[in-house]
C-alpha cells in the first residue's frame, strides 16, 4: 500500500515539471509582437488570442498589461520588480523580463537594468483591449510578483473548484518561489485533485500529500472530506484519523508557541522591572516615571536611526545596535538628572515618591508629545525581521528571540555587577541597611545616584528593545508600568531572583490565561491570582526573614 502511495506522489511530482509545448510558445511569440508592435486592433487580436489559448507562460505578460505595468526594453517586454509607484519613479527598481517569465534583464552595458535605464518605454494598451482580459483575470494573479497576491489567487481558485483550471495552477506552482505561497498553492492543488479523485488509492495519496504539506486549513479540509467522501468508509475513517492527528500536532505546536510568547513577554517585564526593583530596594523609591525612561530609550533609538538615515544616508542595521548602548546612556543620564532634582529629597518615602514621579511622568509624556508628535515607528533591522521557521506552523520571530537573548545578557550583567563588583557590594549593603552602610564609609548618596543611573538605563535598553515589537508613542511606558510593578511586588522588593521568577511567571500566566480567555480577562485573572498569592506570601516570593524584616 505504501509503495503505491509513494509512486503516486512521484508521478505527481513529475507533473509539475511537464515541459510546455513548443508550438504553443511559438504562437505566443507571434501574439506578443502583435501586442508590442501592432496597431490598436492588432494588439486586440493578440490579446484575445492569448486569452483564448491561455498559454501559461504568457500569464506574466497578461498580468503586466492588466496592471498597466508593461514596458519595452530593447524590443523585449519587461515589468518593474516593485509595485510601488514612487519607487518606480525613483529609477532604481530592477526590471524583470516577461517572456521568459520573471528573470532579471541586463542593459546594454551588461548591468542589471532598472527603471532608470535608457531606452525603456512604456507600452500603452487601450482600455478596450485591457477589458479583453476579463475571462482570465482570476488566473492572472497566480503570476503576480507579490507572494500575498498569489496566495489570495490560489485561495480563490479553491472556491471555484474547477478542474479545468488545474494546468494553470500547476504552471504557477512550478515557478513558485515563496514557501508560504507554495504551501497554500499545493494545498489547493491537492484538494482539487482529491475532490475529483476516482479511486480510493489515488485519494489516499492526495490525503497523505495534504498531511505532508500541512497548510492552515488542512485539518478542516480533511474533516469535510471525511464527512462527505464517496470512496468508501475505510477511506473516510482514514481521513478523519489523519485530521485528528494533524489537529493534535497543531495544538502541541500552539502550546510551544504560547510558551515562547510567554517567555518573550516575561523577558520584557523582567527588563523593565529589574531597574524598578533595584531602585526601590535601595532607595525606597517607587518610580512611576520608570516607564517614561523606557519611552526615552525608544525615542533615542528613533533619533539614532534618523541621524543615520538623514546625515550618513545609511539604512544599515548598525543604527539599531548602536542605539542599544546609546539608549542606556541617555536614559541613565536623564535618570541621574531626575535623581538630582527630585528623587534625592524623597529617599525612603515610597508613597511620596510615587506621587512626585507620577508628576514627572506627566511632564515627560507631554514633552515627548510636543517634540515627536503622536506616533513614530522604528524600522526593525533586517537581521531581526522574519522568524525562525522550525516546523510549518512553528515560527519563532527573530525580534522576540533577540529580546529574550538581550534580557538574559542584561540579567547576567546585572547579576555580575551586584555580586561580583565593589559597587554591587555597596548597593547590596545600602539596600540592607542604609545607616549602617553610611557609618562604614559608603557614600550612600553616590551609590544611590549610580543605582538610579543603572536602573533608568536598563529601562532605556528595554525601550530600545520595545521598538522591535511596537510603535513608539509618548505614553508607551504606561502600558507596561503597572505590570512591571506587579512583578516587583510579587517577586519581593529588591530581590533579583524574585524579579526574574515573578517576571517569567507573570509572562507565562498572562499567555496561559489569554489562551483560555480573552486577553482582557486574562489580565483580570492575573490580578486575582496575584491577590491570592499575596494572601499566602505578602512579602513576595523570597521574603527577608528575621526580626528586623518585620517592621
Amino acid at each position: 500500500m505504501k509503495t503505491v502511495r509513494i509512486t503516486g506522489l512521484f508521478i505527481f511530482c513529475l507533473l509539475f515539471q511537464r515541459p510546455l509545448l513548443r508550438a504553443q510558445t511559438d504562437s505566443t511569440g507571434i501574439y506578443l509582437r502583435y501586442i508590442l508592435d501592432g496597431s490598436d486592433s492588432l494588439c486586440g487580436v493578440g490579446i484575445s488570442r492569448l486569452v483564448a489559448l491561455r498559454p501559461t507562460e504568457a500569464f506574466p505578460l497578461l498580468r503586466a498589461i492588466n496592471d498597466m505595468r508593461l514596458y519595452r526594453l530593447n524590443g523585449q517586454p519587461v515589468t518593474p520588480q516593485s509595485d510601488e509607484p514612487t519607487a518606480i519613479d525613483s529609477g532604481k527598481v530592477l526590471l524583470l523580463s516577461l517572456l521568459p517569465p520573471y528573470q532579471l534583464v541586463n542593459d546594454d552595458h551588461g548591468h542589471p537594468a532598472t527603471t532608470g535605464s535608457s531606452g525603456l518605454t512604456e507600452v500603452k494598451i487601450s482600455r478596450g483591449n485591457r477589458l479583453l482580459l476579463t475571462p482570465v483575470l482570476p488566473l492572472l494573479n497566480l503570476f503576480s510578483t507579490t507572494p500575498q497576491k498569489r496566495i489570495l489567487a490560489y485561495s480563490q481558485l479553491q472556491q471555484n473548484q474547477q478542474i479545468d483550471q488545474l494546468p494553470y495552477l500547476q504552471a504557477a506552482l512550478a515557478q513558485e518561489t515563496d514557501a508560504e505561497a507554495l504551501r497554500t498553492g499545493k494545498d489547493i492543488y491537492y484538494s482539487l485533485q482529491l475532490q475529483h479523485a476516482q479511486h480510493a488509492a489515488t485519494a489516499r495519496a492526495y490525503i497523505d500529500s495534504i498531511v505532508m504539506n500541512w497548510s492552515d486549513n488542512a485539518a478542516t479540509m480533511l474533516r469535510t472530506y471525511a464527512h462527505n467522501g464517496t470512496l468508501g468508509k475505510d477511506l473516510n475513517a482514514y481521513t478523519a484519523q489523519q485530521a485528528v492527528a494533524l489537529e493534535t500536532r497543531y495544538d502541541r505546536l500552539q502550546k510551544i508557541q504560547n510558551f515562547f510568547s510567554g517567555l518573550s513577554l516575561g523577558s520584557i517585564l523582567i527588563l523593565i522591572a529589574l531597574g524598578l526593583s533595584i531602585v526601590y530596594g535601595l532607595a525606597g523609591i517607587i518610580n512611576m516615571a520608570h516607564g517614561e525612561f523606557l519611552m526615552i530609550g525608544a525615542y533615542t533609538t528613533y533619533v539614532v536611526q534618523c541621524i543615520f538615515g538623514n546625515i550618513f544616508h545609511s539604512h544599515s542595521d548598525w543604527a539599531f545596535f548602536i542605539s542599544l548602548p546609546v539608549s542606556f546612556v541617555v536614559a541613565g543620564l536623564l535618570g541621574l538628572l531626575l535623581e538630582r532634582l527630585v528623587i534625592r529629597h524623597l529617599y525612603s518615602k515610597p508613597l511620596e515618591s510615587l506621587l512626585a514621579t507620577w508628576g514627572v511622568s506627566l511632564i515627560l509624556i507631554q514633552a515627548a508629545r510636543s517634540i515627536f508628535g503622536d506616533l513614530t515607528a522604528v524600522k526593525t533591522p533586517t537581521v531581526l525581521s522574519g522568524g525562525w521557521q522550525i516546523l510549518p506552523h512553528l515560527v519563532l520571530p527573530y525580534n522576540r528571540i533577540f529580546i529574550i537573548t538581550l534580557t538574559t545578557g542584561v540579567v547576567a550583567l546585572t547579576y555580575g555587577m551586584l555580586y561580583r563588583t565593589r559597587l554591587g557590594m555597596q548597593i547590596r549593603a545600602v539596600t540592607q541597611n542604609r545607616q549602617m552602610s553610611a557609618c562604614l564609609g559608603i557614600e550612600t548618596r553616590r551609590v544611590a545616584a549610580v543605582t538610579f543611573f543603572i536602573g533608568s538605563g536598563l529601562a532605556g535598553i528595554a525601550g530600545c528593545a520595545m521598538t522591535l515589537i511596537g510603535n513608539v508613542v509618548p505614553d508607551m511606558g504606561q502600558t507596561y508600568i503597572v505590570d512591571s510593578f506587579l512583578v516587583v511586588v510579587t517577586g519581593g522588593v529588591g530581590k533579583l531572583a524574585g524579579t526574574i521568577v515573578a517576571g517569567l511567571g507573570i509572562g507565562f500566566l498572562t499567555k496561559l490565561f489569554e489562551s483560555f480567555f480573552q486577553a482582557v480577562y486574562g489580565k483580570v485573572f492575573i490580578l486575582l491570582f496575584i491577590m491570592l498569592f499575596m494572601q499566602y506570601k505578602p512579602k513576595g516570593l523570597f521574603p527577608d526573614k528575621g526580626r528586623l524584616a518585620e517592621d
Partner: protein
Amino acid sequence: MKKKDLIYYIIFLLVFAVILPLGHVAGLVSTNTISLWGRYFCFAIAALGIDLIWGYTGILSMCQAFFFCLGSYGIAMHMLLKTTAANGATVPDFMVWNKIETLPLAWIPFQSSGLTLVLCLVVPALFAFLIGYVLFRSRIKGVYMAIITQALALAMWLLFLRNETKLGGTNGLTDFKTLLGFRLADTGTKMALYGLSLAVLCGAYFLCNRMVHSKFGKVLLAIRDSESRISYAAYNVNDYKLAVFVVAALLAAVAGMLYVPQTGIITPGRMDVKASVEMVMWVALGGRGNLKGAVIGALLVNYLYSICTSLFPDSWLYILGFFFVITVLFFDKGLVGVVDMAWQKWTAYKLRRAAIS
C-alpha cells in the same frame, strides 16, 4: 483654629450658595459655569473620601476613580433605559449596534429608580468590602497597597473598555434625556443638580468632619502613625481600615452618581489609572489630612484645568506635573498648609509689632 474654620465656611457658602446662583439669576453667570461647578463639587465629594483613607488613615488607594465610575455607570444605565423606553425601544442604541436583542440581566434592575439608587451604593460598597477584606487581611499596606489597587483599577478599566461587558465599551454611555422625569437639558434641572451637589458636599463634609473629630478619627490617625502600636492597644485595625475604605468608596460612588447627570456622558476614560492618581493629587495639592484641603484641592485643580485647557491646551500636563512635584517636594501639607503657615507668620509678626510698640 475654630475661628479660622468659620471664615473658610462663610467664604465658601457665600461664593457658591449666594453669589453664583444670584449671578446666574442676574444673567452674569452662564448655566454652563454653574453646571461646571456642580461637577467640581462631585469631585470634591470623592476627594473627601480620598482624604479619609489616605490623608487620615495613610492608605494610598489608587482605585477611587473605579468606585466613582461604579456610581456613575449605575445612574447612567438607569437614565439610558428611561430614554430608551421613551423612544419605544427595548434595548439602548449601542446594544442594537452590537447585535444584542434582549436586555442583559445586569441591566434589568436599573429600570427601577429606587433599585438603581440602592445598587449604586451597594455595589461599590460590596466591591470595596471584598477588595479591602482580602488586602487588609494579608496585611498588604503602603506601596504594595497602592500598586495592587492601581493594578485593579487598570484591570477594571480594561474590562469596561470591552464590548462584552455590555456597558458601551470605549464610547461609554451617553444620550440621556431625563432623570426622574426632569429633562436634563432644562436650566432648572441643572440648577437643581448644582444645588443638590452643593448640599451633598456640605453634608458629606459635615459627616466626615464629625467622623475625624470623634475617637474613630483618632484611631485612623493612630493607624497612620503607628499601625502596630494601635493594634497592641487592642484595636482591630483591619475593621477600621475596612470601614474607612468602604466609606471612601461610598463617597466616590455618590460623587459619581451626581456627576453623570451633569455631564451627560460617562466613559471608561473616567476610571483609568491616571484618573485615580489625579484624584489623589487633588487632595495632595489642597492639603492631605485636612478635609478643607481635600475640597479646596479638588475645586482648584479642576478650575485651573478648565482655564488652562482653554488658554494654553498643550501645557496643562506640564503645569499639573510641575504642581505634583513641587507640592510633594516642598509643600507637604498642601495649599491649606501654606495658608496656615502664612497665617501663623502673620499673627506672630503682628504680636511682635504690638510688643515693640
